């Protein structure tokens, strides 16, 4: 195949060093995606100028958009590298640009440290507080509508796209981010999660919780799993309102 694609990549050698751009050119393959580009570059890391360089460091795992590892800025927009197909990207612009996400500390090249994202899940206690893992008989039933409401939320893969695109998620604030709000709502919806409902709402009503949301609604637009994040956010808004009034009146 003769058609070639030029890929411009923003690189950085270590967390403290500066960033720089390098360009690579490679033949387009049928059904090629961005992770394939990075794989091919890793095999022969030569820039368009013919300079041999170190392969580009990046994060990837499942390559089928269920693990959330390969989030990066592609043509200026955050998305999963595995499901970003070259022929679609070339419809957007003639060359492909790859940059690391900007809201997380950079480690190297396209690789970032998303620990803050998981800390958010701790803040909202996104888990079921079971007594133990032994047998406890039959669990409660769950209605079909409840399952259909919670299942989409449970598909969140913590990829960080919603946070990268959120104008309120940054170094200036400790916003927990849309994904954590949505997970808190998930666990407050399913019967098993109810025992921690109040604690989750306390967390959402704290600084960096739901109040930090500015309703830009980028989260729901960039979410690769089409999770109704803004619905969760509005639900959290309502729940925290009632929760705060209840807390005030019952103390």
């Amino acid at each position, binding site marked *: 195949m003769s058609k070639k694609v030029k890929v411009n990549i923003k690189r950085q050698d270590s967390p403290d060093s500066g960033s720089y751009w390098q360009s690579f050119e490679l033949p387009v393959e049928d059904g090629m995606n961005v992770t394939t580009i990075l794989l091919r570059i890793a095999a022969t890391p030569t820039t368009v100028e013919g300079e041999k360089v*170190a392969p580009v460091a990046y994060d990837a795992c499942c390559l089928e958009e*269920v693990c959330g*590892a390969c989030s990066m800025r592609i043509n200026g927009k955050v998305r999963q590298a595995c499901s970003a197909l070259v022929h679609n990207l070339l419809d957007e612009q003639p060359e492909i640009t790859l940059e690391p996400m900007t809201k997380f500390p950079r480690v190297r090249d396209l690789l970032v440290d998303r620990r803050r994202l998981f800390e958010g899940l701790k803040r909202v206690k*996104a888990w079921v507080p079971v007594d133990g*893992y032994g047998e*406890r008989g039959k669990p409660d039933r769950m*209605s079909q509508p409840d399952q259909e409401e919670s299942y989409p939320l449970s*598909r969140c893969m913590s990829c960080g796209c919603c946070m990268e695109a959120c104008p309120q998620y940054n170094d200036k604030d400790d916003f927990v981010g849309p994904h954590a709000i949505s997970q808190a709502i998930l666990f407050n919806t399913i019967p098993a999660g109810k025992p921690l409902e109040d604690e989750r709402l306390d967390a959402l009503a704290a600084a960096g919780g739901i109040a930090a949301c500015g309703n830009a609604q980028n989260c729901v637009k960039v979410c690769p799993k089409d999770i109704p994040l803004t619905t969760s956010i509005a639900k959290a808004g309502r729940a925290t309102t009632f929760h705060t009034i209840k807390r005030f009146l019952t103390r």
Partner: protein
Amino acid sequence: MAEKDVIVVGGGLAGLACAMNLAADGTHVHLVSLVPVKRSHSVCAQGGINAVNDVTRAQGDSEHLHLDDTVYGGDFLQHQPPVKEMCDRAPGIIDLMDRLGVTFNRTPEGFRDQRRFGGTLFKRTAFAGATTGQQLIYALDEQARRWEAEGNITKYEYHDFLSPILNDNGVCRGAVIQDLFTMEIKAIPAGAVVLATGGNGLVFGRSTMSTICTGSASARAFRHGVRYANGEFMQVHPTAIPGTDKLRLMSESARGEGGRVWVPKTPQDPRDPKEIPAGERYYFLEERYPKYGNLVPRDIATREIFDVCVNQGLSVEQGRLCVYLDVTELPPTTQQKLDGILEIYEKFQGVNPRVVPMKIFPAIHYSMGGLWADYVKETKTGGLVENAPKNQMTNISGLYAIGEADYQYHGANRLGANSLLSCIFTGLFVAPCVASHVASSAEDIPLSLIDGAKKKETERHNAVAKMNGAENPRALHDELGDTMTRNVTVVRNNTALAETVAKVAELRERFKNVGSPDSGGWSNQSVTFVRALDDMITMAEVIAQGALMRDECRGAHFKPDFMIESPDADDPAALREQAVEWCKKFKAKNDKWLKSTIADYNGGDVQYSYEEVDTTLVPPRPRTYGLKGAEIIEEVWREQFSEKATAGAA
């Protein structure tokens, strides 16, 4: 208190189940994972998780039948006590996962919904949309996070397991790991190490497995003396979507929900598949296997696809194994249950599978084999002794293997939706066993041991980082994958396998001349890859050699040259005679080959031996799915051979 700590390597279903269960009982767990645990390969499991349930029980199902289906599907190549224990505990495991908040699909009345999977006639499989593995691992990830917040689990994400730390008596006393951000090498002392490090699909280049499934941890344990068993048994999934970077799984649930596999009767029919009338379609699985239809076990489905495409030339696309998987006729509510996987197809292929039949291909999917692990049989029940330190322990004391990384549960072929079960089961079950081992081995861990192990691995890392030969590691990996995929997948023959063994040996030599293209000090993924390549070559040696040596057909290991010819006489008496002959040959084959292949590293000179299989619960019988003359064979076997088998076992 380091000697009371436990290191769990791998944060998939097995690793997380083990870590949370240990942590809940107060053990401090070091959880080591190549990726954030939530991103482990378990997320890729789509279809569901098997357990006997109230609905199937009412139809006559039982834990024993689940055991029977599992060992029959696995061609009897698994010790039955652990499988029995797993099947007995399966219903409780589903209940637990439900309690942990997994959003299983529901019936209108609010019970868990079930679907049917391959290799069984019962609807045993609970599921959460078409992303069951993802939902299950998230529930466990959340529990691990809870214990991390409590201080009982310390996570080491983006860390590579380099080696176990063995003391002078050969007992495992910790592990050496490497931070993949800073590249710092750390040695952690511990009372036990649990390897839950998954399969090794990347040995075949592209497979349905994630980029991390290189088998490197298993290979490193193997080189430190852990035996590796049944390496040659690799499951080829019949339905995957090809891609330039990986082969994406199209779950068996597509067929479980009524999806049908077919090819046009005209070779490479150029028409739009929607326009091919039903009469000109060959629904080969349904025609050949009226009982199971599209839900035959995976090895059978894969071989039939191979037969239809290669032997009959009916492949949809010339030159590759390609058939249609058709869900277009399913009602929209059923299609909805498959949204998760249909979206993947649509996203990566750009075609809507709700309207156009999917083009699918077989792909390497699961390692049935793995690190050898022990079990302690409870003689009364036939299951396992609870809390016994030896359960799931490898031949190195204090070093355990669970999940896909061990060899115990799936024999020669795994049934769909049994993998999630075996992973969670082994993780939960092993925890108290590990804890009792740790409690009984309280001696101090000398600092010199820890420092020595760390120094050794640091030297190894530095040596790899300095490799500057002419061989490109990625190109070597491509060559390895091509050879393995061509010769060691669906159909195997000894000439090609011997070539493969030679080729792998050549790659082993050429590996010495590899150049690592990166001298960076941070996140040097090239060095990590070169080390993993070394391990993949080791795994390839074990897989190819095991396959070469095993002269029979069993489960996923299919060698036509050693197939027992099916009875085909028209005359009933002659047919019966042929069936008796068949059974005799089958019995002789079983006497010779119903054994697990055991590879022993032995300082680089790998030794192969065979281990007897405990088949005391379900006596082995011919696996006759779709076999010509199946009925007569089964009849003859019942009359003349089965008593003998049971008598021998008792």
